[in-house]
């Protein structure tokens, strides 16, 4: 049973398929399981990456994602980037052309898990490319330091930077990013703060806040309910639940 307001469309900015570490859901989380959950929860679509790109090898997982999602509607693809795909120049050119060719909607990085630091310039070529193409860059909060975020936002002002899985206790860290950088965006999949959405909308507008679930690790319904019940206007809810994401990934 869903009690979600049917005036809202929900596009999820934070989901993946493949193996995972949530013991309460079968692993791997196959594409058909994602599709079933999207349907059961009343979602309208999702950005998605393959966990094999994170856990094993980025190129292997990115290719697997293309194969497994072929001819599927409602899904927008995320590729995982690592320094070796962005260096040297020849490798980078090939990777960037594949991103365009395969209509990849966003790039996600895992600097801690993949053992590098963004501030050393390890993915500068990628950041320049994303800056030029205005392709969103996604990072989980626990995967990057606040200094690395500052490095990206200050140097690459056209990269739409979407910080994901930020905990509800982190307001004092993220506020200055909202204040200083127009290209800073927040996924609220873990930002379950009482009055949090209302405060962010009032201070910075609803355009920088995104619905994300964290599937298959986390459940979509709590965040859908949180948006639906927030004390904000319907227009603001619509921005958060779907419009902001669709605007961000629409490259014509």
């Amino acid at each position, binding site marked *: *049973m*869903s*009690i*979600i*307001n049917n005036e809202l469309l929900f596009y999820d900015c934070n989901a993946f398929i493949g193996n995972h570490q*949530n*013991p*309460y*859901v079968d692993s791997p989380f196959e594409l058909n399981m994602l599709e079933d*959950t999207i349907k*059961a*929860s009343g979602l309208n679509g999702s950005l998605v990456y393959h966990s094999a790109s994170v856990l094993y090898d980025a190129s292997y997982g990115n290719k697997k994602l293309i194969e497994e999602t072929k001819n599927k509607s409602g899904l927008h693809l995320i590729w995982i980037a690592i320094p070796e795909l962005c260096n040297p120049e020849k490798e980078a050119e090939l990777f960037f052309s594949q991103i365009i060719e395969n209509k990849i909607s966003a790039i996600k990085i895992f600097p801690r898990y993949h053992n590098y630091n963004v501030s050393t310039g390890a993915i500068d070529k990628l950041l320049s490319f994303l800056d030029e193409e205005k392709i969103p860059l996604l990072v989980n909060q626990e995967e990057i330091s606040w200094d690395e975020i500052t490095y990206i936002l200050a140097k690459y002002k056209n990269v739409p930077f979407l910080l994901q899985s930020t*905990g*509800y*206790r*982190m*307001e*004092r860290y993220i506020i200055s990013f909202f204040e200083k950088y127009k290209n800073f965006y927040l996924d609220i999949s*873990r930002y*379950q*703060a*009482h*009055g*949090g959405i*209302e*405060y962010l909308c009032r201070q910075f507008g609803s355009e920088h806040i995104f619905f994300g679930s*964290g*599937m*298959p*690790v*986390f*459940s*979509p*319904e*709590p*965040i*859908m*309910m*949180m948006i*639906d*019940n*927030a*004390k904000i206007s319907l227009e603001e809810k619509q921005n958060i639940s779907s419009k902001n994401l669709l605007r961000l990934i629409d490259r014509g």
Partner: protein
Amino acid sequence: MVKSDIDIIDIHAHLGSYFQFPIRQNEIKEIIEIAESYGIKKMCVSHLIAFLYDAKEGNSLTLSGINDFKKLFLFGGVIDPRWSETKIETEYLNINPKVSMWNELHPALHQYPISGIGYKVILDLIKKNPKPVLFHTDESDQYSKPGQIEELAKLYPEIPFIIGHSGNVIGGFEIAVEIVKKYDNAFLDSTFSRNYFGLMKWMIEEVGAEKILFGSDMPFLNGAAQIGKLYEAGVTDNDRQKIFHDNAAKLLQIN
């Protein structure tokens, strides 16, 4: 906005502020407005200052805060296990007549282990006039391991123990579930910030919906998100009726 069609009883909520992050919309009138919009009809609260600074002051602030709004609020009493036996007894005798449940005993913020003697002193008093006791638990915290509730559930069969946050993390959930399966007087609390996909369904399958109570942890956490997890696939209307209302109504003797 669409709200739950069940009259919700919230057994885990607070008043006040927190030092690590700002708590918005925490004025009594704002909490009342939000609770009503979610369909929460009863809400058992304690003041956060009771865990962070002074339990006696916290009880006093809770009572004065909810005094004009008794239709919604129930008083959750807090006692500090680090106090002397005399001070524990004095505060217990002072507030017990007004207490609906002990909400909550907080080993993590009081930095005092569940197995410590101070909690035995408190529970020896509570067992004379048993009311539900919500213990904060978190397997990742040294003071509030959920496994330590087992000894208390065994020692005090007359006291209903609610395992706050149900252990709070993967590994902790499993320990809490085993205790609840084993002891009639042990219950799970649906309040946790990590809303793992499939967790509620798994808990219901393991212990039955009649052993789970709904908590929002407002204004610490977002109450709507806590309600939302009970609308996951696999959770039935019947489960929701028990978890949102019936189980707490029975424990707190609310008609």
